[in-house]
């Protein structure tokens, strides 16, 4: 099979869903052919196939973008809206949290809201303090939505199809630094179910629970530590919330040790929930406390070496794993 990039994977999944269901349509800034198919080209080529009504380039109006997706979803369509960079959810949280997430519940089940909100972010691009945050913890704290992020192209294809299928809102987070990653193309119709983690690498000494770009770091250090005789199990959550508790807890019950890892800042991050839950549910299996690794608790700085220092460091991951397994 051919290799595809994550960008292609997302494009293929959307294309496929649009071909199968007339109700699927995209809207967001710069997404249509006239603008070159999106700043990251995820919607490239789709206007030509499906027309401007189904690939709607919007004004810079995030509240109107998400609101339109909500309304169209209530009317039975399956909108895929795009918030160009994740920090801009700051202007439209109301539509996502007070509306998209709650309308099923508040209507007593009458108005589900099947929509996908795609957004991009990532530290390490040089975009500075207002364009790099990972805010998944905000969404994870809200009932009524799924929060998803792929770490590879194949999962991107499969998760996107499942996100479009879902009858509830899905926040779909794409890491800018992952767009170029390639996988073997899993092919048409491929789906990765929401709420299912992947054991990206099996191991027996410690469970390293992560998602998105830091899965790459996790796999790399797991390989290195293997040579030193430390066997790291890497869990790629894929769905951050509601997450696959079963897989996570099973892994920790097996290894007896756990570390959470994400690019988002550590305090009050998603790792806190996972760590808190693990210690509560796996208390008797744990050989030591669950540790957490996250980004530095500050805005993302501009200067390249500061930005690089801000990100979770592989050296720190290694040190924490060693300390945890008692080989520090």
């Amino acid at each position, binding site marked *: 099979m051919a290799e595809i990039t994550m960008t292609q994977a997302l494009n293929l999944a959307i294309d496929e869903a649009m071909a199968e269901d007339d109700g699927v349509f995209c809207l967001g800034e710069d997404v249509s052919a006239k603008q070159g198919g999106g700043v990251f080209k995820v919607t490239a080529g789709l206007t030509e196939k499906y027309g401007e009504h189904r690939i709607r380039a919007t004004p810079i109006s*995030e*509240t109107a973008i998400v*609101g339109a997706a909500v*309304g169209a979803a209530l009317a039975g369509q399956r909108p895929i809206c795009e918030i160009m960079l994740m920090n801009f959810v700051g202007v439209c949280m109301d539509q996502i949290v*007070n509306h998209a997430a709650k309308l099923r*519940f*508040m209507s*007593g089940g009458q108005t589900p809201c099947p929509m996908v909100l795609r957004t991009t972010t990532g530290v390490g691009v040089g975009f500075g303090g207002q364009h790099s945050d990972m805010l998944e913890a905000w969404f994870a704290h809200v009932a009524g939505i799924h929060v998803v992020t792929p770490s590879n192209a194949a999962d991107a294809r499969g998760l996107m199809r499942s996100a479009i299928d879902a009858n509830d809102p899905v926040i779909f987070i794409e890491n800018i630094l992952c767009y170029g990653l390639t996988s073997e193309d899993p092919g048409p119709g491929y789906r990765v179910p929401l709420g299912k983690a992947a054991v990206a690498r099996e191991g027996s000494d410690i469970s390293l629970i992560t998602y998105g770009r830091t899965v790459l770091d996790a796999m790399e250090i797991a390989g290195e530590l293997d040579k030193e005789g430390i066997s790291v199990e890497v869990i790629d959550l894929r769905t951050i919330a509601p997450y696959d508790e079963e897989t996570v807890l099973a892994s920790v019950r097996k290894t007896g040790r756990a570390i959470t890892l994400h690019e988002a800042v550590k305090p009050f991050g998603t790792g806190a929930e996972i760590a808190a839950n693990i210690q509560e549910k796996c208390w008797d299996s744990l050989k030591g406390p669950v540790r957490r690794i996250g980004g530095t608790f500050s805005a993302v700085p501009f200067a390249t070496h500061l930005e690089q220092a801000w990100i979770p460091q592989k050296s720190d991951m290694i040190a924490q794993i060693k300390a945890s397994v008692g080989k520090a």
Partner: protein
Amino acid sequence: MAEIDREKLLDIYTRTMKVNRTDEKFRELLMQGKVAVMYYCVRGQELASAAAMAALDDDDYVVCTYRGQGEQTAKGIPIEKWWGECLGKETGTCKGKGGTMHITDPDTGIMVTTGVVGSGLPIANGLAMASQNNGDGRVTLVSFGDGAANIGGFHEAMNMAQLYKLPIVFFCQNNRYGEHTAFADHTDSPDISSRAAGYGMKGVKVDGNNVNEVYPAMEEAVEHARSGKGPVLVEAMCYRMMGHFFGSDFSYMPEEHLAEMQAEDPLPKLRKVMLERQFTEEELDKIVADIDAEIDGAVQHALDAPLPSTDEIYKDVLEETA
């Protein structure tokens, strides 16, 4: 403008009185302490809502606010379910989970009732976008207040609707107050309708207390939207004749304002028009009596209805929990 035909006029009258009698009943129940919930009175705005709903087709979409009783009952929501919802009962439109501020009844086109000021407009665009996408010929009407016109979502929604020529009517009920703040204290604009021009949109301002102004304007706006010519902003001038919600103080309203408001009460004005158009006192009273009887039955039904099961707090969160 042509005269409103008699049948339509009677329809508007009936809807108006439905709104008014519901409002009176709700206030009565609250006064008597028979129910204790948040309720946003619509006294003074009955006609505007009713005329707007009378201009829509049955399957058109409506998005309204916490102060949405007028749109909801005038659009024809089943009133037993409406009262059930307001009283937090299992028989309510939303099984008692939404409540007075969040009535949803897709069967009658009441798609969203929102409590966040201005947030209905962007959502209404989405409903209209769906109609445009699948060519179902529906129009969406979104109702909101003068205060809501100052929030960002209003602006974004107006611009986007006009850009795409969505089949939508933006219906602003300018009742001169946003909560405790008078119009002149929340904007320096002369009115809300003139903001439409800034988006290249059609904007009209009408007396929401005069059926011969407000109904034709709504009919025309709906026709404009339905025919593909794009959205219209209609501003209906009216008054909020009570406090912001039931029981809330309105001592901040100046004397002159209260006097002006009384003089413009839409109900005596509408009755006058009806009599001029040869409807009899008896006919009109009979309509009200029938409405009252229906409401009394619905209220009793709601009072007698069971509470939703406590499990409902875990249901309808995601599809898996439906």
